[in-house]
């Protein structure tokens, strides 16, 4: 639609308008006789500009061309809506009321902007007024013959009188029509009924401007403003109708159609679609509410083009990942972050006062450990309890196997002793062990009548073995006229020494005179060390009670290194080790020799196999003494025991193998029986 811009006030008027809707200037005259240049006149002409629908105009341009209240007043609404363009009820109801109340609203009266005042001729300016303005004023004066009420006095048909039904109106609109009583059609349109239809808010429209209902700023304007000139009075209504450009366009179009019936036969398509769907019988729908809109069928989701989809922000396309730590159950209880979860604590963890955790005092002990503990506890308790000695049940109660073993051993020992058959040959002198040979060499190297220290450190229980092993060595030394100085770290050692020398004397029928018994040396390792460091101080007196250190050859002995040889006779490995460790360093180059039992051999032999030998010669039990006797060609106690010893070992081997075989068979049968039972 081509629009016509008024050259007087600049208002854009719709095409076909004959007077300016703002200043009521004659647009026809302007188009024909005007001061505009030709090119501008041509632009405003409908012939030169193609018709352009108002809807194609931008908003800002539509607002520029929005009809002013004066323009609306110039467009006389028709009494009846055209057949082709049905007017909604609200519009038909509004129009009669406007007729009856074609007066200036009260609030305009308060502002001094009344229609009567607007009719007063404006005093032309004195001299500075331009020519085009004077022409405009001339036209306005010409038009003043038609009062302002004429624009609103278009009598509607009686059918559309003031008593039009208001049932179709909403409540707020009905109240507005009753109480507010808009004074003019313009004000009626300010009620913005169509606007209310699109307004989702439930709030009723603002009450009509009254003396009391005006805002302060508007009331202030009314008090301070002087009556404006007539030329500027009509534009003062413009803001009331420019609230919604579409509404004004619609009203303007409707007014134009009602004013010119042939032209009103314009296509209904020019009306808004919602207006065309309305009918006089149709009630006005309730204002759209957000809740009610949800009941409407859902619109299909918008389909974005692929290129636009690719330009979406990553944040909107990426899945929302929760950064909340689900394990963190701490909820802030104080401060501005109270109630939030997962916030960092304001104070250190250690600074918080909390109830200390409760730990169980019960030990975590497994069943195996409990079983071991119970076993240990029972063992300890049994140590403190006296075990009752089982009463002897006589001979029948003795284990048969043990009796058989004892009888077999006794038979082997006594039969060989009594038979005196020499069934077992002595070891060959050529096969003398090295340790025995070393001891023989050291004995042969003894100077005549040299002092030899002999330690008797074996118990009487093992005298049978040890006497036989040591007797041959002692007798060999006796042949060298050695002076024996005996002592012992065992309380019974001095008696054992006397027993052995007595045995030798019994064998040789001669008591050996060169010997001194120093008795018992207490203190164990400390005593040995003390004796090695200072023999005289460790044992100042001999077993006889006299000062034996003053008898020859002990007069020359001041230290242990003054002895020609040290011979240790022991059945205990620990005792042998103490002699080696405590005394051997004090001997210097003098030999340390030993006669040990079979049970002490494993721990003594390593000292013989050292680099500088810590044990210079060694005789082990009857095996060593038999080799010694064989080497020396003597017939000693070992020869007497040799057959019995051999026979006893043989019987022992037989018993162990026989008993082991029987028990192995019994164990196998028991296992087989148990396996078969399973």
């Amino acid at each position, binding site marked *: 639609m081509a629009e016509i811009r008024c050259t007087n006030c600049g208002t854009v008027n719709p095409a076909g308008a004959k007077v300016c809707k703002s200043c009521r200037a004659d647009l026809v005259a302007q188009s024909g006789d005007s001061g505009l240049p030709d090119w501008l006149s041509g632009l405003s002409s409908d012939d030169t500009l193609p018709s352009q629908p108002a809807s194609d105009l931008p908003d800002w341009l539509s607002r520029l061309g929005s009809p002013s209240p004066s323009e609306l007043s110039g467009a006389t609404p028709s009494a009846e809506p055209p057949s082709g363009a049905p007017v909604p009820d609200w519009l038909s109801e509004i129009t009669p009321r406007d007729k009856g109340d074609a007066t200036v609203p009260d609030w305009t009266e308060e502002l001094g902007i009344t229609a009567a005042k607007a009719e007063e001729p404006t005093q032309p300016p004195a001299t500075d007024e331009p020519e085009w303005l004077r022409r405009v004023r001339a036209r306005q004066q010409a038009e003043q013959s038609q009062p302002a009420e004429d624009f609103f006095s278009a009598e509607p048909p009686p059918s559309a009188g003031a008593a039009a039904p208001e049932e179709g109106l909403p409540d707020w609109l009905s109240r507005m029509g009753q109480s507010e009583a808009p004074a003019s059609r313009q004000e009626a349109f300010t009620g913005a009924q169509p606007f209310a239809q699109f307004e989702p808010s439930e709030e009723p429209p603002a009450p009509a401007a009254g003396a009391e209902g005006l805002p302060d700023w508007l009331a202030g304007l009314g008090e301070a403003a002087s009556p404006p000139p007539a030329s500027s009075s009509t534009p003062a209504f413009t803001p009331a109708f420019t609230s919604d450009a579409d509404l004004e366009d619609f009203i303007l179009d409707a007014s134009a159609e009602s004013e010119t019936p042939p032209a009103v036969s314009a296509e209904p398509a020019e009306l808004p679609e919602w207006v065309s769907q309305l009918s006089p019988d149709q009630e006005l729908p309730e204002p759209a509410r957000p809740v009610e809109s949800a009941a409407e069928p859902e619109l299909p989701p918008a389909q974005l083009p692929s290129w636009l989809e690719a330009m979406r922000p990553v944040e909107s396309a990426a899945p929302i990942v929760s950064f909340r730590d689900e394990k963190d159950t701490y909820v802030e209880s104080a401060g501005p972050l109270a109630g939030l979860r997962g916030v960092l604590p304001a104070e250190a963890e250690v600074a918080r006062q909390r109830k200390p955790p409760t730990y169980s005092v019960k030990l975590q002990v497994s069943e195996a450990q409990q079983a071991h503990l119970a076993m240990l506890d029972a063992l300890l308790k049994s140590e403190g309890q006296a075990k009752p000695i089982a009463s002897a049940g006589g001979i029948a109660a003795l284990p048969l*196997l*043990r009796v058989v*073993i004892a009888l077999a*051993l006794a038979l082997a020992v006594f039969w060989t002793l009594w038979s005196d058959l020499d*069934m*077992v*040959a002595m*070891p060959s002198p050529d096969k003398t*062990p090295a340790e025995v040979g070393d001891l023989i060499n050291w004995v042969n190297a003894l100077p005549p009548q040299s002092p030899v220290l002999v330690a008797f450190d074996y118990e*009487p*229980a093992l*005298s*049978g073995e040890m006497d036989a092993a040591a007797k041959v060595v002692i007798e060999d030394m006796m042949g060298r006229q050695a002076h024996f100085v005996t002592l012992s770290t065992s309380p*019974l050692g*001095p*008696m054992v020494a*006397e*027993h052995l020398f*007595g045995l030798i004397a019994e064998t040789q029928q001669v008591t050996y005179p060169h010997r001194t*018994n120093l*008795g018992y*040396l*207490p*203190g164990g390792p*400390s*005593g040995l*060390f*003390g004796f090695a*460091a200072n023999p005289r*101080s*460790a044992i100042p007196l001999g*077993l*006889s009670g006299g000062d034996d250190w003053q008898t020859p050859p002990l007069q020359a002995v001041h230290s242990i290194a003054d002895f020609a040889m040290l011979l240790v006779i022991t059945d205990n490995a620990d005792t042998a*080790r103490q002699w080696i460790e405590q005394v051997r360093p004090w001997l210097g180059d003098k030999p340390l020799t030993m006669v040990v039992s*079979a049970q002490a051999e*494993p*721990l003594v*032999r*390593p000292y013989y*196999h050292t680099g500088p030998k810590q044990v210079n010669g060694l005789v082990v*039990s009857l*095996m060593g003494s038999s080799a010694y006797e064989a080497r020396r060609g003597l017939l000693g106690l070992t020869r007497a025991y*040799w057959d019995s*010893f*051999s*026979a006893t*070992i*043989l019987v*022992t*081997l037989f*018993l*162990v*193998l026989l*008993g*082991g*075989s*029987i*028990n*192995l068979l019994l*164990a196998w049968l028991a296992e087989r029986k148990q396996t078969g039972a399973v």
Partner: protein
Amino acid sequence: MKAKAPFSTAIAIGFGLLTLLAYFLPNLLGFLRDLLIEWALGIVAFALLIGVVNLLAVHWRKVRSGAKGVYSAVLILSFAVTLIVVAWNKPTGQWSLWLFDYVQIPVEASLMAVVAVALIYAAARLLRRRMNGMLWVFFITALLILAGSAPLYFVQGVDLQGLRSFIANALAVAGARGILLGVALGVVATGVRILLGADRPYSG
């Protein structure tokens, strides 16, 4: 009377350190070390006498209480007879040696003979126990040592003594040396603990 812990600990550590330093400074501290050891020998001998008195006291209480007092009475009686004979005849006297030769030695030797029977019985029943590899090793080794200890009747051509010598001189020595090294380390550790006061066997 028992000395208080700090006092007794200080004495033990002090004299222990003196004795230890004497090994490194024999010319300076040797005489002090010998003196301390002589004191120790006298104390140990006295301790042995205290032990004998305590043994008599225990058995005397048993005799007075009447519970199995027969054995305690025999012990006390034997002790008294021996003490009287040795004190009167001296330790090397004829009667003293008679007691030793015909009482002490036969009793102890008989106990050893019983032990021999028990060991043979245990060896015979050894295979009835749960058998494993080490048990067989132990069993066969014991038999070889016994067989090699003396020439056997009716066994000719087998050098069992050479086999026994190998076991005793090689295998047994190797194991014994390990044991001796362990014992030596244990003795050193015990000495250090006593010198540091960690072990106080003197304070009970």
